[in-house]
């Protein structure tokens, strides 16, 4: 409860100009009224049967008592105290406990026309005393009268009732009580008995309409004296923790943009995003015609997320949890193990089960309770079954914002009809997405092949090339598309081209090897011959040296013999020693 209170308080602006307001604590309501209901004044809540008037009033009281320390009195003219306690128990409101703690007083006013005989003058002082007593007993600041119109049915004299109602509302104001008065919608008027005549400060209209067999609840502030307020019709939900008003247009773009990346689970797809995958906290939309493998890409992403040990929420609008696990086994992805480990939660419902607001709200509850790092919605386009496109977009915008504000990476798949212009999905949400991936079936040469391309990816370089997308027993992978002679080859054509290429590569290699062998042989032969020549040359050279030595020796001998007589004659004394040496 403390967490909830904190969250609620954030929604209430710190300074509220103009009149003082009493925060209701109803999710989203204080946002559109910039603070809550006018404090110390009565507010009229009107609407047709079953539109949630009593519940709104009850939540206002319960939240007031539990969150804002403002005890309250619930004066019911329709349901007994016991019935009220039981009806709101499912929302987690324990009225008996609050009554015991003197935070809330339930007072059931029963009027049976048949039991009452009227004679002469009277007033409704008894009602005032009862209300006054209840207010005093717990020091109440808030009052609910649900629905006071029962007085018109129960009391014969309308004149008196009207006069007394006027006095009652004045009494409420004088006592500074913030009050909700509920009233049944009349034909052409806000309330059947014209209560709006008396309660002029704030009027809220609740509506419950059915379109395309799906009901949506809407809330509109008809008037709010002395305060600015949202004028739109806001969808609201009655969930299992009370009312949530969804103020689509008041959401701001304030989310952080993380820079770290998460893998898509397909290595070759990550490569297309500069090798690192998607940004954490970004929104990715997979567009594709039937059977292009959107769910398989999504499953790979889920698998990769769980493998990292992060939690993942898979919202499936087409297949049941079991079916998804079985089908993904066929491409070698075992999602069952992650479900068992509690890392993966599969939320499978039919989109037509409730209105889009309800889906959104449920998703929000799941996100809040499960706190996943990644949310995968497969397929988003099925939601459009339950509502027209123009209504879908704002809600999806809110969904994307909800996930972004929590830093959750979101992957959506969307079905587009075959042959549709891929870049513009029919729900017109591509502008909300950070990354758009298109999956196509290309039919050529009597076969279908899947082509994946990245249409956009904000804030990162990404491949501009289409890849062939292959689902195998071992998962999903991408193959570069072959372009040969300006023809795109995919599927069998690519495979056969590649096989042919492989074969011709083999042949070339063989030829090259043969050539190499032949060259080697030739070289060997030449080398042998070179060796032979060299040996011959060497022999020749040896012969030459021998001859030279012989000639030199001969010369020496001859010189010696020529010099010898001179020596003997001692004619040349200078050289005597040398010659002696030589000899």
């Amino acid at each position, binding site marked *: 409860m403390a967490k909830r209170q904190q969250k609620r308080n954030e929604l209430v602006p710190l300074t509220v100009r103009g009149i003082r307001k009493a925060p209701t604590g109803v999710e989203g309501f204080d946002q559109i009224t910039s603070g809550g209901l006018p404090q110390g004044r009565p507010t009229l809540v009107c609407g047709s049967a079953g539109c949630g008037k009593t519940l709104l009033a009850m939540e206002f009281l319960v939240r007031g008592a539990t969150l804002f320390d403002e005890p309250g009195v619930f004066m019911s003219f329709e349901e007994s105290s016991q019935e009220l306690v039981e009806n709101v128990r499912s929302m987690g409101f324990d009225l008996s406990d609050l009554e015991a703690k003197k935070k809330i007083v339930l*007072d059931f006013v029963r009027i049976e026309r048949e039991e009452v005989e009227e004679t*002469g003058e*009277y*007033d*409704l002082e008894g*009602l005032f005393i009862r209300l006054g007593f209840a207010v005093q007993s717990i020091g109440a600041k808030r009052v609910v009268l649900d629905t006071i119109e029962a007085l018109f049915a129960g009391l014969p004299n309308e004149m008196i009732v009207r006069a007394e109602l006027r006095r009652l509302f004045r009494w409420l104001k004088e006592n500074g009580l913030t009050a909700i008065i509920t009233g049944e919608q009349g034909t052409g008027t806000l309330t059947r008995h014209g209560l709006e005549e008396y309660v002029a400060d704030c009027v809220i209209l609740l509506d419950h309409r059915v379109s395309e067999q799906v009901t949506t609840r809407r809330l509109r502030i008809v008037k709010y004296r002395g305060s600015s307020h949202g004028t739109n019709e806001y969808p609201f939900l009655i969930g299992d923790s009370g009312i949530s008003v969804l103020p689509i247009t008041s959401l701001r773009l304030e989310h952080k943009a993380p820079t770290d990346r998460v893998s898509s689970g397909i290595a070759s797809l990550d490569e297309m995003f500069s090798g690192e995958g998607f940004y954490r906290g970004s929104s990715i939309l997979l567009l594709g015609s039937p059977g292009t493998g959107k769910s398989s890409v999504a499953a790979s992403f889920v698998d990769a997320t769980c493998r990292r040990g992060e939690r993942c929420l898979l919202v499936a609008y087409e297949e049941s949890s079991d079916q998804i696990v079985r089908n993904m086994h066929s491409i070698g992805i075992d999602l069952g193990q992650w479900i068992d480990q509690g890392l993966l939660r599969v939320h499978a419902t039919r989109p037509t089960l409730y209105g889009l607001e309800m889906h959104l709200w449920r998703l929000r509850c799941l996100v809040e309770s499960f706190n996943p790092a990644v949310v995968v919605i497969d397929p988003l386009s099925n939601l459009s079954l339950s509502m027209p496109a123009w209504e879908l977009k704002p809600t999806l915008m809110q969904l994307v914002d909800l996930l972004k504000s929590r830093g959750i990476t979101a992957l959506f798949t969307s079905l587009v009809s075959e042959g549709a212009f891929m870049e513009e999905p029919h729900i017109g949400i591509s502008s909300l997405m950070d990354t758009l991936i298109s999956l196509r079936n290309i039919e050529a040469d009597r076969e279908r092949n899947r082509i994946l391309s990245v249409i956009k990816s904000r804030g990162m370089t990404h491949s501009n090339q289409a890849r062939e997308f292959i689902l195998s027993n071992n998962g999903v992978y991408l193959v570069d598309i072959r372009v040969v002679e300006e023809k795109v080859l995919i599927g069998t054509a690519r495979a056969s081209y590649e096989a042919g290429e492989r074969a011709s590569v083999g042949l070339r290699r063989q030829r090259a090897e043969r050539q190499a062998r032949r060259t080697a042989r030739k070289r060997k032969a030449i080398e042998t011959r070179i060796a032979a020549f060299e040996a011959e040359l060497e022999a020749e050279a040896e012969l030459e040296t021998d001859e030279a030595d012989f000639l030199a020796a001969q010369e020496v001998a001859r010189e010696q013999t020529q010099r010898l007589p001179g020596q003997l004659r001692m004619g040349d004394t200078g050289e005597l020693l040398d010659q002696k040496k030589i000899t």
Partner: protein
Amino acid sequence: MKQKNGSSGDEAAPSEVYSLRLYVAGQTPKSLIAFANLKRICEQHLAGRYCIEVIDLILQPQLAKGDQILAIPTLVRKLPSPMRKIIGDLSNEERVLVGLDVRLVPKKIIA
């Protein structure tokens, strides 16, 4: 007294005792008129077999819830059951008697 004896003989259930409760809020003119009217009617038609309890809600506000009191003044017939309520200052005797389910005894016979 005569009235009582005479009428009791003619009533279908003569032993019935009327236990009445008049809710008022302070000594307002309307309350006083209502009490005076009630007293007169009872004396006239139910003499000796009625009792009136006046509850001032200003003094005992917690009692308003029990009998589902909204209008002031309100006369509640606690007995004989079922409970019946008459709101207003009880100025129309005939309607009071209808409301209390007291059968009118023709006055001639009694006289």
